[in-house]
């Protein structure tokens, strides 16, 4: 590919010593082009990929006047509450804590694909079957405790986006029972730990 064309193709071999060989005006540009394209690739990738990703979060209106914040009543059969604790602990229950729906007793889950996501997906279908109305899907209440960190919050919001939960909310107040649920180290059995008999 890249050889210099020396003017005459060696036709007159052995002729007299070339005195004034016409200067070859072709320069090999291959290496230069290689380099240029390498740099182009670099700049293209860095400009488009360096833009930070973001996730949109809408919070409900907050009225400074406490009395005006109306409590919204929802069907407990549609709700799932997710408690975020320290050390990446996650506990969920379905329905009310005192009277969870069947299979909805407080239980610890792991973050990610094989943990909470499976549960969310199956619950989502169950709720749809229960209501029989597409507009009335699952409601997830996310309660991050004081010990949870920001990664936990983003992770769980990300799960909401992946599973496509129609309604979810971040709620900050904890009942004493819920604190207990997170605070107490779950004993050897990682399965269901019903807080209330």
């Amino acid at each position, binding site marked *: 590919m890249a050889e210099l064309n020396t003017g005459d193709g060696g036709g007159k071999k052995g002729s007299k010593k070339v005195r004034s060989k016409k200067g070859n005006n072709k320069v090999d540009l291959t290496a230069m082009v290689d380099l*240029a394209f390498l740099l*182009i690739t670099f700049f293209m990738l860095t400009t488009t990929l360096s833009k*930070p990703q*973001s996730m*949109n979060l809408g919070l409900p209106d*907050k009225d400074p006047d406490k009395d005006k914040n109306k409590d919204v009543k929802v069907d407990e059969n549609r709700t799932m509450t997710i408690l975020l604790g320290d050390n990446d602990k996650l506990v969920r229950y379905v329905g009310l804590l005192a009277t969870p729906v069947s299979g909805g007793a407080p239980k610890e889950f792991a973050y990610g694909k094989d943990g909470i996501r499976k549960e969310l997906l199956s619950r989502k279908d169950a709720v749809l079957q229960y209501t029989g109305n597409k507009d009335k899907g699952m409601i997830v209440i996310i309660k991050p405790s004081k010990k949870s960190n920001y990664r936990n919050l983003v992770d769980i919001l990300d799960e909401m*986006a992946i599973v496509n939960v129609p309604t979810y909310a971040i709620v900050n107040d904890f009942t004493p029972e819920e604190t207990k649920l997170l605070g107490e180290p779950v004993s050897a059995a990682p399965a269901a730990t019903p807080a209330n008999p």
Partner: protein
Amino acid sequence: MKKKSTSTDMTAMCDVAFLLLTFFILTATAKVPEVMPVDTPASTVQTKLPEKDLATLTIGKGKVFFDVKGKDVRVRTLELMGDKYGLTFSDDDKNKFAVMESFGVPVQNLKQVLDASPSERKSIQQPGIPKDSLDNQLADWVQNARIANIEKHDKELELAIKGDAKEEYPVIKRVMDILQDQKINNFSLVTGLRGKEK
């Protein structure tokens, strides 16, 4: 059989390549060094942050840093903050502020940071912007940046929270509350990129 020459004329290709190269170099914006590097948590959501009309609140180690895009907005924000806290900033200060990276000092100490050279700034201990209820400068920064952005660009400022993954939730909540007090109920959380399947 005539032997064909294998060399091609690269001149045109070279021209094009360098033209593109120049274009990309010029359009690329230099990354400003972060005063406080944070490790953002990953997510699969792939919304890009807007390039302008954006203010970023960086949260890490309990401290909050503030940054707003756009030189004109920054200058106006600084003027408004100066008015509010009875401080005067010279034109030189404003110019420095316009090109500065994010900062995390009380507005009273801002002049020290502005006077320092960019290389010295790294060594200055920045305690974060005060955000408690007695001295809530963060709320003022956000408020004034919003006013400035509407004045300059006639657009509502968007807010983004860039938190460190290990940051504890109460700090994040405190910042969200400050935003909510100003009726900002919609904002972005800056995240890193993660593949579809973990």
